[in-house]
């Protein structure tokens, strides 16, 4: 039987990707007690990197928000793997971190990161309300516009 969160994803028309495999000598997540630490995720869509560029320059604010949402979906795919496929075990999204490759005068990092934060609340309701930071990065891996990491609590 599908879990509540799985049903919610279907209502929202969201299918989670397979969590991208790390490209080096680290792992996509570490479970410590009830906490899951998820590595920074970049905007892979169907195994292809998307949203390459700089927000405020060749990437619009709206595209940056979409990129943050895609990164957050990849974060959730890793959390799902950590929960053996049962997202109902998520008791809280504790913290998200957002890194935005913005142009030198770009200041709307929080608005970009809302793409990730809104997704968590859409999916998990109050359990999706998290602490957060959003900062500008000089560069990001492979030249992507946004990277998102997270800490989750699971049962």
């Amino acid at each position, binding site marked *: 039987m599908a879990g509540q969160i799985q049903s919610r994803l279907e209502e929202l028309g969201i299918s989670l990707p397979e969590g991208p495999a*790390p*490209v*080096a*000598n*680290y*792992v*996509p*997540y*570490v479970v*410590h007690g009830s906490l899951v*630490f*998820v*590595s*920074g995720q970049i905007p892979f869509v169907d195994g292809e990197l998307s949203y390459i560029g700089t927000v405020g320059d060749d990437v619009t604010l709206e595209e940056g928000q979409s990129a943050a949402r895609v990164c957050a979906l990849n974060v959730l795919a890793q959390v799902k793997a950590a929960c053996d496929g049962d997202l109902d075990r998520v008791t809280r999204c504790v913290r998200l*971190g957002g*890194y935005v490759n913005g142009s030198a005068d770009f200041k709307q990092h929080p608005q970009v990161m809302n793409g990730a934060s809104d997704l968590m609340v859409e999916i998990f309701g109050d359990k999706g309300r998290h602490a957060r930071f959003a900062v500008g*990065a*000089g*560069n*990001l*891996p*492979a*030249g992507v516009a946004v*990277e998102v*990491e997270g800490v989750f609590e699971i049962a």
Partner: protein
Amino acid sequence: MAGQINTRLQELGLALPTPFISQANYIPYVQTGDLLFVAGQGPMRDGGPGSIGKVGGAISEDDAYEAARLTGLNLIAQANHACDGDLDRVVRCIRLFGLINAVPGFTNLLQVMNGASDLMVEVFGDRGRHARSTIGAVALPHDMTIEIDAIFSIA
């Protein structure tokens, strides 16, 4: 008797640097329960910075990889101090966060950060496999090439 990890360090020909203590109002690590939060470390060698400058500029990618490895060694030195010299008490390297001082347009950040990740796995084996986030920074303190902070779990 030397512990397993100390023996491993010797096999690898690695000597831990003297743990760096800032003159500012923070401390190199805080332990809460079995979690050890280590403050951001730089590529310190013999009490001074071992790599100054931006990767993609004055610093080559290979040299930046070595700076990441040296910074990882400084993180292990702090963990060693926290464990009263017994690194066998390290249960897991949970998470690394890498800030890399890079020229605009340099995007091989993951390759640089691998210097620290590879070291953790060489030294701690599976216990060294961590979650990780990596970003490029526009500038870092003293123009250090890289800064990394870490969370370990210790027994």
